[in-house]
């Protein structure tokens, strides 16, 4: 029995799955190759039309076309099924570098291409490391092995969220091994439940870690969830929220998240106004000091200079993190003015 079969059997046994049916993507690719030949995948326009006819989603079509432009794709699919493991690994590494897709996605498509092109891939002896880029192995784990479990858990999670029932009471057993295996969607589900289902900080932190891992592996929903998390933390972490929303999370933007992005963008404008108004207030304070309105003139000028330094820091911070909280700067200016007035009244 080959290692692939070992893994497959282990997974079936481990996750309690028995269905090993091919995914829709696998079927579509097999149909294209069987009806039009592997060369059809090399013609971008034809490949697009054929995938569309086979019912592949628009997002997957774009990803497949992106992968079709990766170096070595033509050799991979036109090699009449004779392809070394090293070639498979090399293509996966190239795809990571050139397409920007995450490894999970690459492997999912690679599996579909390989099955369609009849590539006899083996996972026997590891290929000798020629350089650091090809040291990672391109494990092609059929999605069908865990798809049902994930779908089932996803449905349960959706119902629980809709009904407002406790998320931590869901049955996590089916997805725990998938989380350990690093399946991004499983990590997303688990992370979501831990973050939203518990008040315990350490549990929530574990949830955040899982969501971060899922997002790093290319799960768009996890990235958007992280954006929500940072958004709800308050203005102090809106820069991170913005990065999440406008990065990979952009593919999972709901109307609420779009509103959040708009709010974050407005925040930049508001921050700018806050700093400009603070500058105006500082100018007035300086004038008041110069005219000797209560405060000692020398003290007033000294503290105005200190306030100016604070304000300069504020502008620098704003340039670096335009969506962050800048409330501290007008308050700091007012506190400095208060100190100058207090010292003046005590002298």
């Amino acid at each position, binding site marked *: 029995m080959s290692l692939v079969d070992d893994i497959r059997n282990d997974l079936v046994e481990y996750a309690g799955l028995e269905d090993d049916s091919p995914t829709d993507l696998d079927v579509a690719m097999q149909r294209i190759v069987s009806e039009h030949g592997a060369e059809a995948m090399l013609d971008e326009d034809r490949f697009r039309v054929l995938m569309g006819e086979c019912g592949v989603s628009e997002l997957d079509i774009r990803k497949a076309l992106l992968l079709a432009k990766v170096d070595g794709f033509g050799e991979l699919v036109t090699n009449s099924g004779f392809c070394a493991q090293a070639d498979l690994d090399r293509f996966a590494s190239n795809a990571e570098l050139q397409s920007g897709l995450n490894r999970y996605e690459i492997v999912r498509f690679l599996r579909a291409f390989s099955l369609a092109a009849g590539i006899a891939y083996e996972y026997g002896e590891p290929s000798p490391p020629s350089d650091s880029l090809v040291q990672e192995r391109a494990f092609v784990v059929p999605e069908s092995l865990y798809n049902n479990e994930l779908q089932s858990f996803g449905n349960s999670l959706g119902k629980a969220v809709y009904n407002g029932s406790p998320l931590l009471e869901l049955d996590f057993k089916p997805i725990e091994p998938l989380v350990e295996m690093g399946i991004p969607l499983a990590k997303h589900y688990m992370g979501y439940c831990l973050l939203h289902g518990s008040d315990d900080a350490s549990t929530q932190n574990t949830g955040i870690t899982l969501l971060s891992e899922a997002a790093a592996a290319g799960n768009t929903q996890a990235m958007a969830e992280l954006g929500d998390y940072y958004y709800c933390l*308050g*203005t102090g972490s809106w820069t991170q929220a913005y990065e999440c929303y406008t990065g990979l999370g952009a593919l999972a933007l709901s109307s609420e998240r779009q*509103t*959040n992005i*708009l*709010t*974050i*963008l*407005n*925040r930049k*404008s*508001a921050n700018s*106004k*806050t700093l400009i*108004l*603070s500058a105006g*207030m500082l100018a*007035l*304070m300086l004038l*008041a000091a110069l005219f000797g*309105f*209560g405060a000692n003139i020398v003290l007033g000028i000294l503290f105005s200079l200190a306030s100016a330094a604070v304000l300069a820091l504020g502008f620098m911070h704003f340039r670096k993190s335009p969506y962050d*909280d800048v*409330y*501290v700067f*007008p*308050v700091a*200016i*007012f*506190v400095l*003015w*208060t100190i100058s*007035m*207090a010292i003046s*009244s*005590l002298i």
Partner: protein
Amino acid sequence: MQLLNMARRGVLFGANALVVLIMMLGHMEPIGALRVCVVLAAAGFLLVYKGKASCVMEDIATYVCVDLVAYVALWFDKIIAAYDAKAIGTMFEKISTNDFGILLMIGVGLLIAGFIWKPWLMGVGGGCVGSALVLGTFATGGFKHIEFAGNGKIVFTVYVFSAAFWTLCLYMSEMLQPKRKTLDKILSLIVLAVSVFIAVGCSAYTNAIAPEIAKNMYALPVEGFAWWRVLVCAIVLGGMAYALSNRRSTGAIWWSTDSIVLFGCIVLVLGIRVLMDYYFIFSWAFMLALVVAVYRCIFNEKSGKTTFGFDTLTCFAVELVVFIVLSSMLGSGLVPSAIVTCVILLAAYVLRDKRGKYLANANVWVFLVVAFVVEAVAWLGVRHNLAIEYVRMAAILVFGIATLLILNKHRAGDVPAPRKWDTVVCCCVALLCVLSMHTSVNVKTTPAADNVKTTLSAARESNPITGATYEWVNAFGEVVAPKTPLPVGESNLPIQADHLVVRATDSAGATIRYDYYYASWMHNFAGSRQQVADAAAAAAASKENKK
């Protein structure tokens, strides 16, 4: 339930009996003590064993009556020995020749009205009748030119206070149990008869004990109503309130009406104590307002209503705090501050957010800043009236509000600025206001019976006093004595009226004002009437000269 109610009645009776016995220990006479014990035993039998009150505080008027009877029982021999039938005849002769008779007629009218309608009116009527009779015994000259003989002033003062206290007890009793009108009417007649008999019929006795009463009254703030005694009293009353509360099976406490009444008593006792420290001319009206407020809360509690949306205990706490703050301001002559405080409290009540988001609104922070600054300005207007101080306060107000608006007006979406920053700004404003509330002149006064020792000094050597005056003003706002220069250092000023006003000016040009109030029933206002007449004559002469 019956036994439970008896136990509750026992708590009040026990506390009252304990107080009576403690008072009796200082004046132990074997026969008198025996009579007191008999009276207490009879009262215990009737009020506790045979009593039917489920709300024990409704018997409060009865307890006061029992205490009076116990007092008479203790000193029965001396009181009877001092009885003088001729004095009564003389008294009625006096009343018929001056305007005290009008008070007597009004009192009789109120007594009749109370007998027909509301028993508490009998308290007021009895007070008027008794006062007229006491004045007829101990005073001459009518209301306009009243002159007290001997210790008449003390007897009259004690009688008026006692009548007020009795009226409050009657009102409380009637409020808690409207069906016991007949008993209260009978008790009122007994109390009136006994008190008038002692005060008027046995004037020799009252004259004999008056000096000791006067001595005790002068020493009230440091002895009878010393803070530690008041606090012990409050703790005891609180303990009784706890004992009279109802406990549910879950262990939770549900305060009964009795407990609420006792908490109200704590508020009143603390209020009286505070007024002793911060006496001013209209203290009596202020105390009356507190009594009305407390009674209103008790009435609402009994009717199952809230007062201004607060539960009764919260309302008591608010009333006490407001009373203390306003008393301290009025007693220190800071009338503008008291008015500003009232306006701020009223505005806060009107503007309050009923949805519980009181502090989520930026306007609330602005309101707080304005309140701090306005309070400081009101204080400065009296204690350090200088233009530059107002400019400083304006700067604090402008920059404080500007910072709050910068924090709250430019925000993205519905996300408000963190409250901590608003809090920091408000704290800074409060700090600056407190630091601004300083004065350059210190005045210290130590009153005695006839005069007041005044010490005037500059707060800083760099800002000396350039001039100071004082003047005496009576309760009606009339200047008794014209402005007189007050030297820096110690001075001994004879107390001439209710109100002493000290004004000073420092080298920076700030004007400073201090006000001190003296109770007419505690001090002798030497020559005040003559001086008012002289001042009026001098003013008239001055006008004539100008013409």
